[in-house]
């Protein structure tokens, strides 16, 4: 009966968009199929029938919708695309499990007897509440039903933003701050906590390979992504270390609905970005195979076009992935692997100290391989098991060449300090049992094993760290509209005395309101770099890790209130979020006050570092034309010299999406104001006590993208074009650094200037 409830929810929930991806389709089909088996015992075959799809609000035909049927008894599946009049013809009449999906409408699932002229009214989707999510739970469920506040970025959002990577997808969110570095790439901070406090998962498996504590978001291409789930606040009970500020789970695509899929997408940006990617997939019975390939080239960007030196480095990426999935009534198996090869050229400018005839060019070669195997079995209505194994490999080679530009001869620099190879491997295995003995209790228990090893010059040889944990959560439903979930994680870490991590999440629905409250304890073990960094530049600069670092712990309070109301042809959604995060033993990079050539990682142990904030978002939809969204987030961070005082910044974002379904085009405008913000660096005495505080300041700036989408040839060909970075941001003013020789200028790169782009996508599907 629990499954029936889920199915009922599926029907009730509003949908923001309903491009039915392979994944969500499979979920919807799964639920619907179980319902069907419970309800039907026979089927009848009749004559050919015609199905008409209409907009439930306007009564107009809905063309190009995906309509999937499953013969109840035989289990035979087929899918069709509705024509321009919104009809699907030549169907053998009978009893089917039916699933209809279309951009801008809720997924419609039903079990029915096809009659000669059947009309189905599709409800427009209004809210972003209906996404099927899997983060933090074994059982896929609608985002709105999740006890966590989960934001979902689906393929429609990727298309609307013409995003090529994760950076472009999330950069306009008001509570997300993107930091960019030409060599290290892009990283994000969520609610004021930066890269190393954010857990990044691919299909639930952690991604290895942090440089300077961050995973380059540009390495996370979106060509094979089904959707991305982000959760703000600690998820350490489920995902362990690093999941303090937020968790990002990238779910890759599966093609369990289509017989054949082939797609190719080409993208050009005037700054010199060329992207080409393709997908191919086929399904044989319950088995599906898919392959994706991508080539991304960026010619780099510098303020001076003629200089060899680029702020944004020329980069060539090859990305390849293979997925296999099997699904039957009770179980599901998937094996996924994704490989990235990146070559990045950090070319030196022609400089006087090289007499304008030589240059030191640094080439970075990066390999990333992320593989997961997941098996899930539903033993019965109450008991499920999920076993996940993962491997993540990361290697980055830095090779420095002395480039004789007179004779165009390139030789490897004979300086071991300028050559480096960092290798990090991560193996993880987790198993979760979900047990729902009664309707009012959902329990999850499992274990999680993670072993990470790494070596590299700057991390003092081979190092490793193991994390072994047992975790337990249970959702109690004392009332129909109230969920309470306590959680507990017991950890043994090979290097730290890890704390007991616990959490309490609640969700309360009242009419059109929903409230979420969570309290969680998070923790983060220091990175290998923070522990073992060794950077000695002769006598001049000595930067070290600290083997005595303690793990960071944090306590987080999170409150979220949402209101969603649907009217005849429009809807309003409002959300308000408040968070308070108190961190102990925050790890920071501190200079020696007496000798700023000496710097080391320390725990800030003279008080709790606090960040807190409030964010609000309102969305208005006028079906089917217009979506308006406005959001703001104010963030306060403790000042290091007085932890009880705060420095605040307020970001503002908005978007306008106009969709003309009749003519198949959309016009989108995305805007964000990134407020100025301050970062504090400390200086210590020999005991590691902070004796001096330095303030770094980064100026605020406006950012806006304008994008037009146009679909033709029955939506198989999509053309996107527009302008990104309309305000032409490149470098913005920044200041601060207390170290001798520490400053590297008074600007921070935020963009490569205004660019024009065009993107063509061709999709071929056969069901």
């Amino acid at each position, binding site marked *: 009966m629990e499954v029936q409830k889920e199915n009922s929810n599926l029907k009730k929930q509003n949908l923001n968009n309903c491009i039915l991806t392979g994944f969500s389709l499979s979920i919807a089909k799964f639920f619907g199929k179980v319902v069907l088996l419970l309800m039907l015992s026979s089927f009848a075959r009749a004559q050919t029938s015609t199905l008409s799809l209409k907009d439930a609000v306007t009564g107009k035909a809905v063309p190009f919708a995906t309509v999937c049927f499953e013969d109840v008894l035989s289990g035979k599946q087929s899918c069709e695309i509705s024509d321009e009049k919104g009809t699907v013809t030549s169907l053998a009449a009978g009893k089917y499990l039916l699933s209809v999906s279309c951009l801008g409408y809720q997924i419609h699932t039903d079990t029915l007897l096809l009659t000669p002229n059947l009309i189905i009214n599709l409800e427009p989707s209004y809210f972003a509440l209906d996404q099927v999510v899997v983060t933090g739970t074994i059982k896929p469920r609608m985002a709105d039903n999740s006890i966590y506040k989960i934001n979902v970025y689906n393929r429609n959002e990727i298309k609307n933003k013409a995003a090529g990577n994760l950076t472009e997808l999330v950069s306009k969110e008001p509570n997300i701050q993107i930091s960019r570095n030409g060599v290290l790439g892009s990283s994000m901070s969520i609610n004021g906590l930066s890269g190393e406090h954010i857990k990044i998962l691919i299909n639930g498996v952690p991604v290895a390979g942090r440089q300077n504590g961050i995973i380059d978001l540009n390495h996370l291409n979106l060509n094979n992504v089904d959707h991305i789930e982000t959760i703000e606040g600690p998820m350490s009970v489920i995902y362990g270390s690093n999941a303090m500020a937020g968790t990002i789970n990238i779910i890759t695509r599966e093609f369990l609905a289509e017989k054949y899929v082939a797609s190719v997408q080409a993208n050009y940006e005037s700054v010199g970005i060329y992207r080409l990617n393709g997908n191919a997939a086929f399904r044989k019975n319950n088995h599906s195979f898919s392959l994706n390939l991508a080539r991304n080239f960026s010619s780099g960007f510098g303020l001076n076009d003629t200089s060899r030196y680029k702020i944004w480095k020329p980069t060539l990426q090859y990305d390849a992935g293979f997925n296999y999935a099997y699904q039957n009534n009770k179980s599901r198996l998937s094996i996924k692997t994704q490989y990235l090869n990146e070559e990045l*050229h950090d070319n030196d400018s022609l400089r006087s100290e090289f007499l304008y005839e030589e240059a030191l060019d640094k080439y970075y070669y990066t390999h990333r391989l992320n593989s997961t195997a997941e098996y899930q079995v539903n033993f019965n209505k109450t008991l499920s098991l999920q076993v996940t194994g993962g491997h993540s490999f990361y290697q980055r080679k830095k090779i420095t060449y002395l480039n004789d530009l007179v004779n165009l001869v390139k030789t490897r620099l004979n300086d071991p300090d300028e050559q480096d190879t960092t290798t990090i491997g991560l193996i993880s295995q987790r198993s979760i049992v979900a047990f729902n003995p009664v309707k009012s209790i959902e329990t999850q228990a499992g274990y999680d094993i993670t072993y990470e090893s790494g070596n590299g010059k700057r991390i003092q040889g081979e190092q490793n760290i193991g994390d072994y944990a047992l975790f337990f959560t249970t959702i109690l439903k004392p009332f129909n509209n109230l969920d309470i979930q306590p959680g507990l994680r017991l950890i043994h870490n090979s290097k730290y005395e890890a704390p007991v991590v616990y959490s309490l999440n609640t969700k309360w629905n009242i009419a059109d309101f929903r409230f979420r409250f969570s309290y969680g304890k998070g923790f983060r073990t220091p990175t290998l770099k923070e522990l073992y960094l060794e950077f000695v530049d002769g006598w001049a600069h000595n930067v070290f890790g600290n083997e005595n670092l303690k793990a960071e712990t944090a306590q987080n309070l999170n409150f979220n209130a949402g209101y969603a109301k649907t009217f005849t042809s429009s809807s309003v959604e409002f959300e308000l979020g408040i968070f308070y995060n108190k961190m102990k033993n925050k790890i920071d990079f501190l200079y020696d006050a007496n000798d700023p050539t000496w710097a080391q990682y320390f725990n800030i142990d003279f008080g709790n570092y606090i960040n807190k904030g409030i964010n609000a978002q309102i969305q208005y939809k006028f079906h089917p034309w217009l979506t308006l969204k406005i959001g703001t987030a104010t963030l306060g961070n403790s000042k290091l010299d007085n932890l009880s005082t705060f420095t605040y910044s307020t970001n503002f974002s908005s978007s306008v999406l106009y969709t003309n379904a009749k003519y198949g085009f959309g016009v989108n405008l995305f805007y964000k104001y990134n407020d100025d913000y301050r970062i504090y660096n400390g200086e210590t005495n020999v005991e590691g006590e902070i004796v001096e505080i330095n303030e770094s300041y980064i100026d605020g700036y406006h950012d806006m993208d304008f994008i037009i989408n146009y679909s033709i040839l029955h939506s198989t060909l999509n053309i996107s074009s527009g302008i990104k970075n309309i305000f032409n941001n490149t470098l913005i003013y920044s200041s601060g650094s207390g170290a001798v020789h520490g400053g590297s200028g008074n600007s921070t790169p935020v963009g490569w200037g205004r660019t024009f782009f065009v993107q063509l996508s061709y999709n071929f599907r056969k069901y």
Partner: protein
Amino acid sequence: MRILLFLLGGVLLASCFEEDVPVDPYPGDVTTIENNISEYYSYFDFETGRVIHTHKFDDWDLGFACGKNDWHVRVNSPKGLFIAPTESQDILTVDFSFPVTGWKFDKPSGNPDSSAVGKWVDNSGDLYNYSNTVYLLGEKTDVSYQPLFALQFIFVDSTRYQFISKDFFTSLIDTITILKTDSANFTFYNFKLKSQLNLEPEKQKYDLIFQIYYEMLYTDDGIPTPYPVRGVFLNPNAVEAALDTLDSFDEIREDNISTYQFSNKADIIGYDWKDVTVDFDAGSAVYFIVQGRTYIIRSVEGNYYKLKFLSYTFNGINGYPRFEFKQI
């Protein structure tokens, strides 16, 4: 449309890294200090246009000025050695255990009064008065200092020095005599070798020393910070220099010489003809030459030369000054 996509795909696949175009070589004569100045002292002579002598920077611990009336004692701080004066005047009973502050290095100006040891003898009258101050010689380790020896300078005249050392670890007492030499500005002593070393070449045969030395730098917040820098000292024996930031290297001619105010300050050329950008994240330190600086040097032979630095890097590795010079 598919053809268009295939064409576009072909263009995208053809996109690749930009090739370099050849550049012209530097038009002037370039002189390179071929031993890294982080590790070696290189004594350069303008007349021959070459380095006439080198030695390792850490060959010595203490240096002693060799002029007949000289009493100036140097300490090799780039080797990690610093001097701290104590309040004791009795080296036999000096207490190593008290917390020592005020570790000093020699100011690079070369002024004897600004040295770490300072004025330990008053030779203004006929009779020499010795302060008999006991100094600690310590080694900087990380951000603290480890005392190695107690030192007491007890005698100097026109031919020799005498000082007493007390080993921190063994408490052994030793009295050491250093003989002055006429041919050099300084003679040196190495505690490990327990011997006097004449490392400097003949003082009439070189003009500049490329070396590492300590300087007091200031952070952006004005915090004074002892810092090892790499730069150029003058031969204290009659070499002088001036800095011209107005005229370009090519514009400077004989007529200009009379307009310069020459200085015999040892570090008049110093280290700040270059600067550095450090990127901790990338683990790199990029040095660059401060443009528009030409040094005019009166050599030990009395000839005038103009010099401009071109680079601090040779074969891609820092620590190798490259410069162009011409006799005026």
